């Protein structure tokens, strides 16, 4: 999967990953995708809620090598 930008939020606690993701997404164009890496288990629900509220699409949400990896596509 191709990403237009990547954000490593490893080691950060809620709400820092969300805050940084919001900032990173604001720099993207509509339709572009941001990859986010996080270590906080609560971030799974946080990013679901974040996308539901912002209208951005949570393209994928999974675990890789003990870290949580998300792909969010910016809404039009």
């Amino acid at each position, binding site marked *: 999967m191709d990403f237009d930008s990547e954000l490593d939020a490893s080691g950060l*606690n*809620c709400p820092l990953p969300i*805050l940084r993701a*919001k*900032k990173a997404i604001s720099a993207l164009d509509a339709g572009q995708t941001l990859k986010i890496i996080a270590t906080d288990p*609560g971030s799974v629900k946080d990013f679901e809620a*974040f996308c539901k*509220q912002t209208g951005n699409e949570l393209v994928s949400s999974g675990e890789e090598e003990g870290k949580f990896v998300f792909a969010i596509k910016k809404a039009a």
Partner: protein
Amino acid sequence: MSQRLSGPERRESILSAAQGLFANKGLHGVSVDEIARAVHVSPAILYRHFDSKQSLYDAVLEKFSCQRQSYVDTIVNHGTRFEDALAGMTQVFIKNVAENPDILKIELHSLLEGNPATLAFFQNRWKSFTDYIEFGLNEYLPYDIPNREKTILSAGLMFQGMVREALIQKCLQPQDRLVDLSLYELSNELVTLFLRSIGINKTQLSRKATISS
């Protein structure tokens, strides 16, 4: 005689009674028998809903862990400026405690009881603030200030102490001298004082201090 309740209603009534007892006496000051008596059921019925006193205690704490959603709301609906997000998070936190001061009493008991799992639960609640403050200041404080790292570490602790004491004063030991200051006003004043005391000009901060991607 116990009133007939549905399973979920019974579970909720046990949780509610247990919360009050844990708040007033701590985890170790309450027995399963005492909780069962408070809801007029036998211990056997209580054990149908909760395996142990510890699992009941964990369920009480779990009820208070729902503020993450509000943090996400705060970030989505507020700006990404350091001071806005900090003020928004503080409002969420104090609202959560003000609506149910039992959480504060349980936290204070847990400090004395020293149960590692419980201490970790409460430390995590504060860690959202201390991490946020450390991260934000690390990016935005000038690199040449004396004792920079110590200042950043101490700032998180200072904020935690300030907010916790405000909650104790307003929720547990109402003071006459603070009667004209609501908890929310007090919280805003404290955030402002906090920013000023660590040497950050609030106007300057609001113009440039955003958390970068």
